[in-house]
């Protein structure tokens, strides 16, 4: 009896220490989560802090007098005349009128406030409305990138202001009058890449990413699922299938650039497919995501309880019926989750695309699987390497767009799992 009492004593004595130990253990866990979360917060704060201004554009509203004599044009339907006409002069004149005190000598300084592509906007407008010739129209144009930077980051030391004191005074005045204004940057979502930051957009990259992802999904999901079903349900257990399994696991860990090299050697050099097209990008990314999809699909098939198979076999279903009617539907949520995570990984990939020529300056929005295209992470990479400071905020804004895509894909994966999952 004394022995037992002493045991209870021992337990009581150690109780405090054990509680302490547990508290410490929990604290470690919380600390780990806190570190991970703070890294995430710093990342997001940095990107959003730098990039939110990428979603803002600076415009100038002008009363443009479309004087035929000044523009050397008398018929706005004549292609030849449109090509030779001067569309910069009316813009300069319109802006000069808004800046009292600007003389003929300031022409160049005034011109440098307007976006170099504003004349193209004017040309397109006149081409669409030939009867505007000789009238005065109120139109809104993008400002020059230097003005954009000044308006948005005038008091930020990280940006260098390129405008002269005189130009800054003009811009301040026009801002007060409301002629220069900032608004939501729709250009960013409706244009392809450009060397002029004000005119650059992510639409080309978004479309390129969607085309590439479509090819990847269409190829990798059926192949991956078929391979997983065969390996899990039909393949005999022998040295050979072990060998295949080891190889698939290894492939999942191969650096992605290797798949790019393979794509270059096989698809482009051997098969003669064109460079920089979404089809080749999709093929390369298929190779990259296949192992992930196969592994997760096999895990999903394995987690279907044997009782389901036995019950189906018990009432006389063939092996194929068991798989197609019972195992596959139950394993589907797991397979879909794995595939979506694999696709999200592929969406953020740039390294293999470098070798097959998708890291390129492409202005036109791609309109097919065989059209030159680039993808979102590549667009970020290209902008981050540009000398123009205004591209920094565009790069961060593009990262936000990419993150939005990734988050929605992951959310879809979670929703599908919740929706389709069955518990036993």
């Amino acid at each position, binding site marked *: 009896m004394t022995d037992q009492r002493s045991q209870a004593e021992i337990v009581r004595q150690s109780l405090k220490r054990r509680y302490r130990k547990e508290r410490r253990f929990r604290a470690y866990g919380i600390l780990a989560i806190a570190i991970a979360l703070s890294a995430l917060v710093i990342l997001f704060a940095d990107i959003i802090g730098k990039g939110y201004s990428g979603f803002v554009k600076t415009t100038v509203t002008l009363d443009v007098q479309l004087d035929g004599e000044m523009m050397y044009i008398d018929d706005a339907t004549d292609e030849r005349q449109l090509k030779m006409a001067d569309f910069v002069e009316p813009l300069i004149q319109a802006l000069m009128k808004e800046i009292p005190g600007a003389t003929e000598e300031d022409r160049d300084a005034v011109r440098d406030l307007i976006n170099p592509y504003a004349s193209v906007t004017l040309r397109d407008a006149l081409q669409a409305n030939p009867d505007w010739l000789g009238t005065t129209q109120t139109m809104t144009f993008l400002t020059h990138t230097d003005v954009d930077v000044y308006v948005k980051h005038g008091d930020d030391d990280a940006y260098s202001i390129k405008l002269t004191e005189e130009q800054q005074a003009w811009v301040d005045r026009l801002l007060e009058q409301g002629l220069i204004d900032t608004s939501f940057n729709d250009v960013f979502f409706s244009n392809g890449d450009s*060397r002029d930051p004000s005119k650059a957009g992510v639409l080309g990259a978004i479309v390129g990413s969607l085309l590439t992802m479509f090819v990847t999904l269409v190829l990798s999901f059926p192949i991956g699922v078929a391979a997983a079903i065969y390996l899990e349900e039909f393949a005999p257990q022998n040295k050979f299938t072990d060998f295949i399994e080891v190889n698939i696991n290894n492939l999942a860990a191969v650096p992605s650039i290797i798949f790019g090299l393979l794509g270059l050697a096989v698809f482009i050099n051997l098969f003669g497919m*064109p*460079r920089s097209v979404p089809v080749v990008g999709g093929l390369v990314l298929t190779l990259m995501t296949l192992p992930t999809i196969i592994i997760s699909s096999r895990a999903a098939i394995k987690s279907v309880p044997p009782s389901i198979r036995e019950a189906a076999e018990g009432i006389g279903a063939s092996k194929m019926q068991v798989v197609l009617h019972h195992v596959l539907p139950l394993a589907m949520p797991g397979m879909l989750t794995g595939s979506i995570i694999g696709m999200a990984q592929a969406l953020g990939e740039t390294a293999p695309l470098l070798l097959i020529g998708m890291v390129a300056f492409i202005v036109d929005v791609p309109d097919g699987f065989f059209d030159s295209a680039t993808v979102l992470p590549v667009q970020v990479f290209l902008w981050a*390497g540009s*000398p123009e400071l205004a591209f*920094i905020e565009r790069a961060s804004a593009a990262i936000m767009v990419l993150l939005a895509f990734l988050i929605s894909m992951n959310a879809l994966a979670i929703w599908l799992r919740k929706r389709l999952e069955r518990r036993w």
Partner: protein
Amino acid sequence: MKLNKAFATVALAGSVAAMSAPAMARDTISIVGSSTVYPFATVVAERFGTKTDFPTPKLESTGSGGGMKLFCQGIGTQHPDITNASRRMKTSEYDLCMNNGVTDITEFRIGSDGIVIASSSKAQNMDLTLEQLFLALGKEVPNPENEKELIPNPYKKWSEIDSDLPNVAIRVMGPPPTSGTRDSFNELALQGGCEDLPAVADMSEDDMESVCQSVREDGAFIEAGENDNLIVQKLIDDTSMYGVFGYSFLEENADRLQAATLNGVEPTNEAIATDKYPVARSLFFYVKKAHVGVIPGIKEYVEEFVSPAAMGQNGYLKSVGLIVPTRDALMDLQDKAANMPNLKKEELM
């Protein structure tokens, strides 16, 4: 057995089809090459795309050497039409082109770019000679006690080379060996400061080159990848660091960075265009003549590139930082664009 035969037939047919499949048609000009020319070529491409009815050319920034390799791979729409370079084509690359059937090439020299040694404007600026630069960055340098003997670079601080230089550790960020900027830096700056040293005077040309163009590998020279913005960012954060990159990046960050003078010359537009600045190099692009007329718009693109609107004294390339050629050189370029003369091997020697 039957199954095997069927498989074999299918595989054979597939591979034959793949081999003989004609390369897919392309109507977009494909341009590869130097990351230094890329910012200029992209502006021209975009202007060309908005001005004309041709699609906007596609540009890949592969580095000068990588561009040459792709360009010289052969004739056919799967190969690029134009390659940009921040140095001249090498004779070995010319031979590669010839061997692969790319026999007719036209060369365009489009202007200059300077390589600068820059630092944060808060740092102490340097007045360097090329010799001092080589002593700071060379892998093997002359022994200070015996100028004929080469020893592994002993200098840890700039002030050890010359007491006028800053008393900080030698740390220089620069481009990797794949970049044309690095080629030019090695050739013009390092070799320029090394070839007159007594230690290499008696060497054969090849030995001299390998000594003069070897950069130290003990951490004083840091390779930063092709992203020059990264170097700029690092320099602003760390005022004891110096960086090597193209003049256009200096111009873009003029209020935050300053450049060291080399042999007493400050890198300015004028000094680079007139070759007074010692580390100025020319920029080129090469056109594959066999593709002119096959891929629509090549000739027009070249004409746009060498037009006064682009490369003239008030051209738009000047505002992006290109140091434009003189008026006479521009006239020559326009003649070239009209006639497309073949590049000869003798010219590259």
